[in-house]
C-alpha cells in the first residue's frame, strides 16, 4: 500500500537554526532515507523550495486568477513529500516515527487512492464517444 507523507516545516524555525544544526539534521534525514530505500519503502520523494516561491491558481468569476504564495497561510509549511510503501497504516506510522525529519515539523500520512478501476471505467466511457 502506498502512502504519501507530507513533511511540514516551520520555515522561520528552520532559518534560525545554525548551519551546523541544519546540516546535522539533513545528514540524519538522508541516512534514514537510504535505509528506507534499501528496505524498499522509499518509492519517491521531492524537497520543495520555500513556500514563498509558491504560486496559487484559483477559479474566480469564470476565469483563473494567479496569486503568489501558498494556498493557505499556516505556521508550518509543506517542505517536501515522501512516497512510502508500507504494509498498512500502522507500519507507515512506525516507519515515519523513526524519520529524523519529524523533529523539524509534523508528517501528515495519507493513503493513496487506487484509481485503476476508475481509470478503466473512464476509458470505457471515453471510447464510446
Amino acid at each position, binding site marked *: 500500500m502506498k502512502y504519501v507523507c507530507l513533511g511540514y516545516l516551520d520555515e522561520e524555525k528552520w532559518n534560525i537554526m545554525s548551519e551546523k544544526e541544519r546540516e546535522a539534521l539533513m545528514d540524519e534525514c538522508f541516512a534514514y532515507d537510504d535505509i528506507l530505500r534499501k528496505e524498499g519503502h522509499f518509492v519517491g520523494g521531492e524537497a520543495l523550495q520555500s513556500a514563498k516561491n509558491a504560486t496559487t491558481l484559483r477559479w474566480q468569476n469564470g476565469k483563473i486568477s494567479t496569486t503568489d504564495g501558498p*494556498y493557505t497561510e499556516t505556521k*508550518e509549511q509543506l517542505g517536501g513529500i515522501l512516497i512510502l510503501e508500507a504494509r498498512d497504516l500502522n507500519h507507515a506510522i512506525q516507519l515515519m516515527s523513526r524519520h529524523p525529519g519529524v523533529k523539524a515539523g509534523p508528517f501528515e500520512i495519507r493513503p493513496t487512492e487506487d484509481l485503476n478501476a476508475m481509470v478503466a471505467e*473512464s476509458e470505457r466511457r471515453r471510447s464510446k464517444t
Partner: protein
Amino acid sequence: MKSFYDAKRRTTMKYLLMCCFDEKLWGELPETQRKNIMDEYQALERDLEKTGHYKSGAKLGPSSSTTTVRFKNGKPAITDGPFAETKEQIGGYHLIECGNLDEAIAIAMRIPTLPAGGSIEVRPVEYLTQV
C-alpha cells in the same frame, strides 16, 4: 541521467502541483460532474505523459484518513487527521517537469478541478545534489 541533476547543466525544473479542494463541496457535486472531472484528469495526464511533462502523481484518500506524526517532548506523537484544519484539503498532486514557472502555471491552468472551485498550488522542487 546524472547530468540532468547537475544544477549548471539543468535546463528543466520540476514542479509539484498540489490540487486543493473543499471536500464537502466535492461531495456535493453531482456524480456525473465528478466523473467528467476525473475523465478530464485522465485525458490531461495522458497528454502530459505524451509530451514528457508528467513525472508522477497520486490521488489521496480523504483527509479523514490522515494520520499526523509530530515530535513532542523528545518523542513522536501520533494524532488522527491532517496537520492543519483548512477549508480546502489536498486531494492529490502531480509532479511535472518543464522549462520554467510560466510553463508550470500554463499546465496547472488545464487542471479540471479549477473551474469546479478548486485551487492549485504550484511549488518548484529543490535540487539537493549540492547538499
